[in-house]
């Protein structure tokens, strides 16, 4: 990070070759930059304003989550996962809890499953709203940010009422839930659904047909479905490139197979398609939530899980469809109370690798748009 000599091929120490001598200019973007969504540092090699190549320097937010896991019990590690993708903490929790449940061979009771789905999908909407606001802000539209934050607030209020926390919720427990849904939970969720539907139309009204928005996003950061697969890119980015793949459908977890929803796909794999895909995803999430709220069964919310968890020796890989893509947990148990090794498969980290491919030949302004459209969270990239 400070040793700039090792940054070949983009060597910062060589003096700038400008315009008349050669066509290259090396620009350092970040880690303190308003549009890199945290502490991402991108070193750009430019020809005028055209990007010849770039290199991401990450790790500024590395906290050693995987190392911490090895020194905590399964239960104690649960809150830590919220701190990775902190805008979709509920999804992180779901993935972790389900992975450990699989390792323990227990299953959360149906009522818990329903509430989990509701909260996770609410969190997906919140994450997409935050993405939309900041992405639009990067492209220069400042107003959507305030609209999305206003509406995201309603989701956070539901989280707060449910478990007392707004951002890093720690909503789920291994084996089910700790808290029963509060009185009026269902009403709140229903009210939210009817409240947010016209709001999503409002965002679209502001952007979807806006000429400048179209010019800024169409044909920008194009990536083909084949490249996506080779680069391991998942989530809305993959779907916008035309690959109809969603873990909720392909390898259903929780009780997603009970719900009726569609997987939106794009055609061109450009920034605009990714925008459209995420907008439709928000609507589909609402659909799932409405079905789930209508069908919450009565019953216990916690399965029988031993107080001291000692999963049998073995390994498990379990992944879920987080708002950003495939979020996987690879857990190795040695039979003790502490996991022997937890590996998190972070969607943001893998997706960020595609930045170089997507930005080559584009302009500096497009780099900003592409970073925004990848929807990365540095907490998850660096862990």
């Amino acid at each position, binding site marked *: 990070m400070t040793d700039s000599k090792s940054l070949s091929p983009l060597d910062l120490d060589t003096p700038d070759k*400008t315009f008349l001598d050669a066509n290259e200019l090396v620009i350092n973007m970040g880690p303190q930059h308003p549009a890199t969504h945290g502490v991402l540092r991108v070193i750009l090699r430019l020809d005028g304003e055209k990007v010849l190549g770039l290199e991401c320097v990450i790790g500024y937010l590395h906290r050693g989550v995987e190392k911490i896991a090895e020194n905590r019990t399964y239960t104690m590690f649960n809150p830590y996962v919220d701190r990775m993708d902190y805008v979709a903490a509920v999804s992180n929790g779901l993935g972790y809890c389900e992975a450990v449940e699989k390792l323990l061979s227990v299953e959360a009771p149906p009522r818990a499953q329903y509430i989990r789905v509701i909260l996770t999908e609410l969190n997906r909407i919140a994450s997409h709203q935050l993405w939309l606001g900041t992405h639009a802000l990067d492209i220069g539209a400042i107003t959507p940010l305030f609209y999305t934050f206003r509406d995201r607030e309603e989701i956070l209020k539901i989280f707060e009422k449910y478990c007392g926390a707004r951002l890093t919720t720690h909503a789920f427990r291994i084996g089910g839930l700790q808290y029963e849904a509060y009185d009026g939970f269902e009403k709140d969720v229903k009210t939210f659904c009817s409240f947010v539907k016209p709001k999503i139309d409002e965002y679209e009204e502001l952007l979807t047909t806006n000429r400048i928005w179209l010019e800024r996003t169409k044909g920008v950061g194009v990536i083909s479905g084949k490249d996506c697969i080779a680069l391991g890119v998942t989530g809305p980015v993959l779907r916008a490139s035309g690959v109809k793949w969603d873990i909720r459908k392909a390898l259903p977890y929780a009780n997603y197979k009970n719900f009726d929803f569609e997987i939106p796909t794009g055609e061109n794999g450009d920034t605009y398609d990714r925008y459209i895909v995420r907008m439709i995803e928000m609507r589909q999430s609402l659909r799932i939530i409405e079905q789930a709220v209508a069908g919450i069964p009565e019953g216990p919310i916690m399965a029988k899980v031993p107080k001291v968890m000692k999963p049998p020796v073995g390994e498990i890989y379990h992944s879920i469809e987080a708002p950003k893509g495939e979020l996987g947990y690879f857990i190795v148990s040695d039979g003790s109370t502490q996991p022997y090794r937890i590996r998190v498969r972070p969607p943001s980290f893998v997706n960020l690798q595609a930045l170089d491919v997507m930005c080559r030949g584009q302009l500096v302004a497009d780099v900003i748009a592409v970073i925004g459209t990848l929807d990365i969270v540095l907490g998850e990239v660096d862990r």
Partner: protein
Amino acid sequence: MNPSLTQNPPVATSFFFYGIAAIMIIGGILVITRKNAVHSALALITTLLAQAALYLMLYAPFVAGVQIILYAGGIMVLFLFVIMLIAIERNMKERQFNKQWLIGIVAAGALGGLFIAVYTTVTRTASGSKTIFPLGSSSYAEGQNTQGIAALLFSQQAGTYMFAFEIASLLLLVAIIGAVVMAKKRI
């Protein structure tokens, strides 16, 4: 109506003239003595603006306005544009006056001689009969200056500069195309 409002009080001509002329000369000297090209360009802009002021004093507001728009606002911006993109540090180390000083002195001398010649001709004109500007370009009042120039350039009776004017613009077009061809190998 108060008579003092309608009559034009004399402008402090000589005072302003010498002041502006001094600025021009200082600016000109700075242009050729500064090592930093951006400083030189800024000095040149000062000189050009002072020149525009001189035009104004000659009751030629149109020329002054064009001077500001074209030279100070347009050409000098492009100058600065280019200067900023080349490495200033290296230029600073180069020798200030290069080997063309002989030609420079000859050219400056020739220009000076021309000025002196014109000056003496015009002063003789005031008393005598010789003129170098037969059209009498100062016959338009200040308020009609722009219209006067237009008439001189384009109208059929007064001027025959129309063709020359258009040729000049064509020449500039050729220069632009040439620059594009030279700069871009592939268009």
